[in-house]
């Protein structure tokens, strides 16, 4: 469309539509009008069938018509009421059919939240410049003692305990209960962190709280809590609010989790993984049963016996006895019927395994266990190598 020049020296008559559309384009072309925060009082709030919200934002001397489309309105946690002091974000445009300029609102917050946010940004920048957010120590792989700083009555505590119970019941948990909301919450949270760190000495501390408004999360946006976090010896994992909430405490912590449950998950190994790892190791161990080794050794002995004369016969006999002693030990460990393979277990009268000829005296009786039954034998002679 062609650009219209409203201030041409001799304007020819233009249509209302041309004028209105031209104004609308002019307004929409100004970046600053498309990214506005405006504060005022809500009046004439209406919510017709369409689901869109219409209201006027006013102060003492002026009024601004506002619209919030249904798709955005549906996502709002709170519906504004007439008289509310709010701040709205959106872009300015013109509703051509009525020749009315209005703000198309995409975000609403209560008045004061803006200045809280400003303070948040300032504090964050200051602490960051000081180097307070530089900590990101690695998590202990096997935390034995896990500290939790949160309210004793909140859902966050239950979420964390359930998660730990399910994933990692090997741990011991120490709760440092504290208020997490209200005027003294910041001081109390900081104290709880420090006490827990010093008295219970956990390797890991979960600093958690359920979701809330920026005001509700104030303690977790305080300088005193940030400093307490950075002083702890324990590694700190924060899990404050919902996924979208980011607090000063999150920046100061070693690791930030989006929610309390996620903090507990990030901080601990998973029981099922532990079981799988143990099972894998166990089966690797089973494959290393020394029976295979013994069988190889016995085979070598057989070959040696065939090739050598009587000189070696004594030694091989003794070696064989030793191996059979080993086999007996293995049988106690492994249900494999070693005896089936034709080996025997030799025990002295007191039941001890005979592993060396010197263990027994000539004339002693020995118990020789074969696959089916026992032999009661008498020692004629012993020979040591």
């Amino acid at each position, binding site marked *: 469309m062609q650009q219209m020049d409203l201030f041409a020296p001799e304007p020819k008559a233009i249509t209302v539509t041309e004028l209105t559309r031209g104004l609308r384009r002019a307004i929409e072309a100004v970046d600053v009008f498309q990214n506005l925060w405006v504060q005022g009082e809500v009046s004439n709030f209406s919510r017709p069938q369409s689901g869109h919200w219409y209201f006027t934002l006013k102060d003492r001397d002026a009024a601004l018509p506002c619209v919030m489309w249904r798709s955005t309105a549906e996502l709002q946690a709170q519906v504004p009421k007439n008289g509310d002091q709010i701040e709205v974000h959106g872009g300015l445009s013109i509703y051509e059919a009525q020749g009315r300029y209005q703000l198309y609102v995409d975000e609403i917050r209560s008045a004061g939240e803006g200045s809280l946010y400003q303070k948040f940004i300032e504090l964050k920048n200051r602490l960051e410049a000081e180097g307070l957010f530089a900590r990101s120590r690695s998590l202990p792989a096997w935390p034995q003692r896990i500290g939790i700083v949160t309210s004793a009555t909140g859902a966050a505590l239950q979420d964390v305990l359930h998660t730990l119970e399910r994933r990692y019941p*090997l741990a011991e948990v120490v709760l*440092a209960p504290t208020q997490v909301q209200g005027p003294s919450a910041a001081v109390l949270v900081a104290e709880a962190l420090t006490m827990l760190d010093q008295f219970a000495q956990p390797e890991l501390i979960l600093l958690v709280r359920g979701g809330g408004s920026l005001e509700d999360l104030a303690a977790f946006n305080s300088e005193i809590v940030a400093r307490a976090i950075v002083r702890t010896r324990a590694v700190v994992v924060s899990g404050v609010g919902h996924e979208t909430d980011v607090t000063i405490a999150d920046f100061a912590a070693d690791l930030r989790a989006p929610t309390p449950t996620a903090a507990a998950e990030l901080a601990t190994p998973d029981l099922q993984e532990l079981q799988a790892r143990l099972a894998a190791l166990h089966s690797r161990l089973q494959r290393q049963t020394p029976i295979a080794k013994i069988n190889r050794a016995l085979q070598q002995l057989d070959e040696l016996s065939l090739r050598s004369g009587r000189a070696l016969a004594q030694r091989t006999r003794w070696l064989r006895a030793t191996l059979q002693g*080993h086999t007996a*030990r293995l049988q106690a460990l492994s249900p494999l019927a070693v005896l089936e393979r034709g080996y025997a277990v030799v025990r002295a009268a007191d039941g001890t395994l005979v592993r060396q000829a010197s263990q027994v005296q000539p004339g002693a009786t020995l118990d020789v266990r074969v696959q089916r039954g026992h032999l009661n034998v008498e020692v004629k002679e012993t020979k040591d190598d």
Partner: protein
Amino acid sequence: MAKPKEISSLSYDKALEELESIVQQLEAEVGDLDAALALYERGQALSQHCSTLLEQAELRVQQLGSDGELTPLD
């Protein structure tokens, strides 16, 4: 290897760590049969210990009091 510790006193991670090392030694087939048997026996005991720990594990929860004392929490 350092002097072996009483298995029942080992934490899960220490027991698992030792079990891992034993399996590796056995797989490498170093040492004589006696040593292998001893390792195998200890490996079996460690494996049993670990699985008992996992089966019996129950999260213990305590609360820190204002005096720094720990008390059990239900």
